[in-house]
């Protein structure tokens, strides 16, 4: 099952037992596969048309009226188009708007530079107390959806819609704000987030192991609040940290990790991601190679980084 099917299935599961759960789309119901929710709960589903600002504003009003609204749109529009509405009517007003920004970064593929959110995490991270979630696979999403729904505040959820993959066994338990350790290694910590980069981090660890370098791999499925304790522990243990994200290296996971290490555990850090470039069209394979997000491309930077520090 893909991410969007899991998302909708979880929404229906939650809505079956809680009449407060509502869902809103902005003319992307087809894209997010939320039709089954509408079929099951027609009174609690609203498609507002191509009007993301209004969608988030209505979601805030539903929240003020006692509901738990989930609103979906592409991440580019969730962050860039509806930012003020999410910031003010949602977060500042202390409402409980759950906003899905889908198809982050390179997963936007053929929709290209206009639709390729490489800055949404940076924008969202500055909102006080917002929770930001970036699951690596359907099992992680499933393990976090109920906590997202019942977190007393707004949540930004970042994930692709269509792809399928398995990082975690179904039924794995997750806790918002607590990163997952996927691999133990003493030489370097690979801190990754999201559907695209967590598998690449695991692959990178394999490639490093073949060169005799043992990497720990951490999955930051929650970017805010960041798991400072686990990060500091692994930074101490390995002495070097590499961040991996499908996002600008400014302001996202790399920025969060740099801030955290700077404050708690100063450690040499290499931030990998998109560096001062806009999005573009292409297949995900092309885009990952072009932006240097594949394990093979990342190794090219990690090995010199580790050698320089030895």
């Amino acid at each position, binding site marked *: 099952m893909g991410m969007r099917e899991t998302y909708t299935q979880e929404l229906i599961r939650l809505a079956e037992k809680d009449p407060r759960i509502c869902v809103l789309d902005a003319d992307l119901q087809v894209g997010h596969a939320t039709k089954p929710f509408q079929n099951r709960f027609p009174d609690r589903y609203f498609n*507002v*048309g191509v009007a993301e*600002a209004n969608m988030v504003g*209505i979601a805030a*009003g539903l929240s003020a009226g006692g509901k738990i609204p989930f609103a979906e749109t592409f991440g580019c529009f969730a962050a860039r188009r509806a930012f003020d509405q999410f910031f003010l009517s949602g977060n500042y007003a202390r409402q409980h708007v759950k906003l899905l920004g889908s198809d982050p970064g390179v997963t936007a593929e053929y929709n290209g530079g206009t639709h390729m959110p490489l800055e949404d995490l940076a924008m969202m991270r500055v909102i006080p107390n917002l929770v930001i979630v970036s699951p690596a696979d359907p099992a992680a999403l499933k393990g976090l959806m109920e906590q997202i729904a019942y977190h007393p505040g707004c949540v930004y959820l970042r994930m692709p819609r269509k792809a399928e993959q398995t990082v975690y066994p179904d039924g794995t338990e997750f806790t918002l704000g607590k990163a997952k350790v996927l691999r133990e290694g003493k030489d370097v910590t690979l801190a990754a987030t999201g559907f695209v980069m967590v598998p690449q981090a695991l692959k990178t660890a394999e490639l490093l192991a073949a060169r005799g370098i043992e990497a720990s791999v951490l999955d930051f499925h929650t970017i805010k609040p960041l798991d400072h304790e686990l990060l500091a522990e692994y930074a101490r243990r390995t002495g070097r940290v590499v961040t991996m994200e499908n996002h600008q290296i400014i302001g996202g996971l790399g920025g969060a990790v740099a801030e955290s290490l700077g404050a708690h555990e100063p450690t040499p850090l290499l931030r990998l991601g998109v560096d001062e470039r806009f999005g573009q069209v292409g297949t995900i394979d092309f885009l990952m190679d072009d932006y240097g997000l594949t394990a093979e491309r990342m190794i090219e930077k990690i090995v010199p980084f580790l050698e320089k520090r030895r």
Partner: protein
Amino acid sequence: MDGAEKKRLEEKAKQIRKDTIEMIGRLGVGHIGGSMSLVEILTLLYYREMKVDPQNPRKEDRDKLVLSKGHAGPALYAILADKGFFPREWLLTLNAGGTRLPSHCDMNLTPGIDMTTGSLGQGLSAAIGLALANRIDNREERIFAVIGDGESNEGQIWEAAMAASHYKLNNLIAFTDANKMQIDGYTSDVMDLLDLRAKWESFGWFAQEVDGHDIGALSQALERAKGEKERPSMIVAHTIKGKGCSFAEGVLSNHNMVYDYDQAKEAMAALG
């Protein structure tokens, strides 16, 4: 509405104007223009129409108001204080550090405020969300919203206009405080809104136009709006920015105006 009731509400409106002029005057600066123009609208709603409970501001079965032009908070604060939502002394804390009464409406600070507003254009969407929530819960309570004519430059207002009519939200009654001015000048010069009633009607609303300082006319329009079964209602209230504040009425610079307590006292005395 009989003559005695109209007189009662007019007296209330006068008192609210005085309290608002004083509140801002003691501070020395504030949004006097847009606070004066909607006094009759808010007076009609809070002293005659809306089901609210000052002792229990978050009571579930209450009518709600979204003051989308959140900078007119001071006029609403004067009403909420008068009704007993919070002590009158709070009115003198407007915009003081740590106050419960900020320049723009904040539902988490001020008892009786139903939605946080301030970034223009957002409140009508929130009002739609509140109206939808009531519909989901089969609640009869109504949602009221007040937007500005200058605020209607915002595209989100028209996104909301489409949505409210699409969802046939007859439990939503909105007012436009059409005071014909915005920060940079007359609305007709800055960004001409042309025929607002026609616009709302074309968006599928039951739209009316009234003298926004005539409580009797406002009340009749409200009664007609309440009778509407299929559509959301927009009452375009033609008003005067700064109405009733002698030194501010109709003055283009009255949006966020500097004046002192002496000027305030003169204006309050002039109201009688």
